[in-house]
């Protein structure tokens, strides 16, 4: 028996979210109680794999084959299912990110294991197996019971803190027999460089239609830069092409949960708030004192974003002595 955690890598490296997921899987396994095993697919150096040991993962199975460089949902599903079967894993956990969302449902079918996607914490009980997740895009929480013997969970981003718990790591190379052929052919890759990725960011600086025009985004980018933050926007802003669609946040865009979210010139429509309401702190700047964004904000300034932004940048530079 085991809890199996799929630890994705990005160009051979793990991210903070990987370690959050590892910490979560470790704690889940302790509670069951069961051993925890990580599965890595694609080439990752031993030194990087060993980092998982800081978060309580004592055993790592590494599928290194170069054939598996591209995410092929069918092939990855077969590999994860094969490893889960070998370990007789009772629970498989993945991140609730693009690849986790692509793989977990397939795994659920293949393993006949009930799936709860985007859970926000450890199960509330094990017999019956009950977990909590957000529904109606953050407008409500639901308790979900999984009826099957095996379970699949994806963990919502930024919902579990990294917990250090150092253990020695045993790495085992594994060659799957059931993988089959990779059919997904990648012809071209575009990667954002030099920018903080929105779904990874601890701080997000966002602008809405109240910013008036794309030329006014300079101070938003500058504030993001001095804070090491990602930039985001409301839907009309990306629809107008003022900002790339990757930045669109809300019900129909990205759902994010940073520690700090700045909303400049965003009215706070229910569909926008759905994507940001899990932020720990929200700061809103809006000329309209009755804007609904102030109902969800922790701190608010009723004022003109064009004036507040430069002053805020100065004040932060001063406070951080930059």
């Amino acid at each position, binding site marked *: 028996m085991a809890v199996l955690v799929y630890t994705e890598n990005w160009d051979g490296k793990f991210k903070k979210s990987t370690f959050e997921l590892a910490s979560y899987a470790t704690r889940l396994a302790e509670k069951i109680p069961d051993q925890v095993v990580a599965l890595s697919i694609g080439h990752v150096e031993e030194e990087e794999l060993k980092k998982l040991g800081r978060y309580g993962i004592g055993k790592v199975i590494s599928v290194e084959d170069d054939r598996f460089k591209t995410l092929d949902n069918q092939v990855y599903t077969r590999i994860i299912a094969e490893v889960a079967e070998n370990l007789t894993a009772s629970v498989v956990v993945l991140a*609730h*990110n693009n690849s986790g969302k692509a793989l977990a449902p397939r*795994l659920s*079918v293949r393993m*006949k*294991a009930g799936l*709860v996607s985007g859970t926000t914490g450890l199960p509330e009980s094990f017999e019956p197996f009950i977990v909590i997740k957000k529904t109606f895009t953050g407008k409500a*929480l639901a308790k979900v019971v999984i009826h099957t013997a095996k379970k699949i969970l994806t963990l919502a981003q930024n919902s579990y803190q990294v917990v250090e718990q150092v253990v020695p790591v045993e790495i085992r190379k594994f060659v799957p027999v059931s993988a089959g052929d990779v059919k997904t052919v990648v012809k071209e*890759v575009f990667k954002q460089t030099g920018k903080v990725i929105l779904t990874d960011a601890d701080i997000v600086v966002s602008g809405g239609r109240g910013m008036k025009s794309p030329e006014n985004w300079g101070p938003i980018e500058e504030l993001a830069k001095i804070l090491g933050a990602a930039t985001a926007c409301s839907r009309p802003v990306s*629809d107008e092409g003022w900002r790339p669609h990757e930045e669109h946040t809300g019900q129909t865009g990205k759902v994010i949960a940073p520690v700090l979210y700045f909303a400049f010139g965003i009215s706070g429509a229910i569909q926008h708030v759905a994507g940001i309401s899990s932020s720990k702190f929200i700061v809103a700047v809006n000329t309209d004192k009755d804007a609904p964004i102030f109902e969800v904000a922790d701190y608010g300034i009723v004022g003109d974003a064009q004036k507040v932004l430069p002053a805020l940048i100065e004040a932060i530079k001063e406070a951080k002595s930059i």
Partner: protein
Amino acid sequence: MKILVCLGNVPDTTTKIKFSGEGTKLDKTGVQWIINPWDELALTRAIELKESGQVPVEVISVLTVGGTDAEPTIRKALAIGADSGYRVDADPADSYQVAFQISEIARQEQFDLILCGIESSDYNGAATGSMLAEILDYPSLSAVSGIHPVNGHLEYTRDIDGGRETVTLDLPAVLIVQKGIAKEPRIPAMRGIMMARQKPLTVKEPGPSAGYTEMISFELPAPKPSCRKIDPDNVRELVNLLQNEAKVL
């Protein structure tokens, strides 16, 4: 090429969510139902592809799993431009049960391209499309934000964390689509609404399937404490609060 677009029937995005039966089910009184936003974009893109003639599209079918109250959703899709509709007469229980019901029709009808939205805006399962692909043993792509006809075949844009890829894949396949796939959802025109009445809507009995999971209760999140207002001429105070009270800077 035969395209199937799977449609979820969800509360309008502005709905104030309430529960009945001591928090065990959604209170449907006064709820306006809409096509799940991503599914509506998927349908729009399918129609654009057909109209463009850049790839041969013979038929666009739409399907929803639901009771008679889900029929307006199918009629709306037919009015927007789908050619035929299916309704599987079952109450959606969970993503698996829905995917299973769709798979039965997909097998019979042999669609080449199946489009599903990345999630439904009600239960946010983000699972139906990929489950369907696994049941059918078809390849799938998730987080697809573009479908591009190139020399008579299709290429896709897939979003990855911090970037995107241009990808090809053999058909039949399931694409799980998101924002970017089409700019604006289409709105039915008068002529479309008239024509929709003549288009076939087939009601199917559900196949044998139970869900793997069950939502047993719901709760509204705790209300937020009220917003602390800061004078626009005193942003230092905001920085101070963020540093020393919230401790996030």
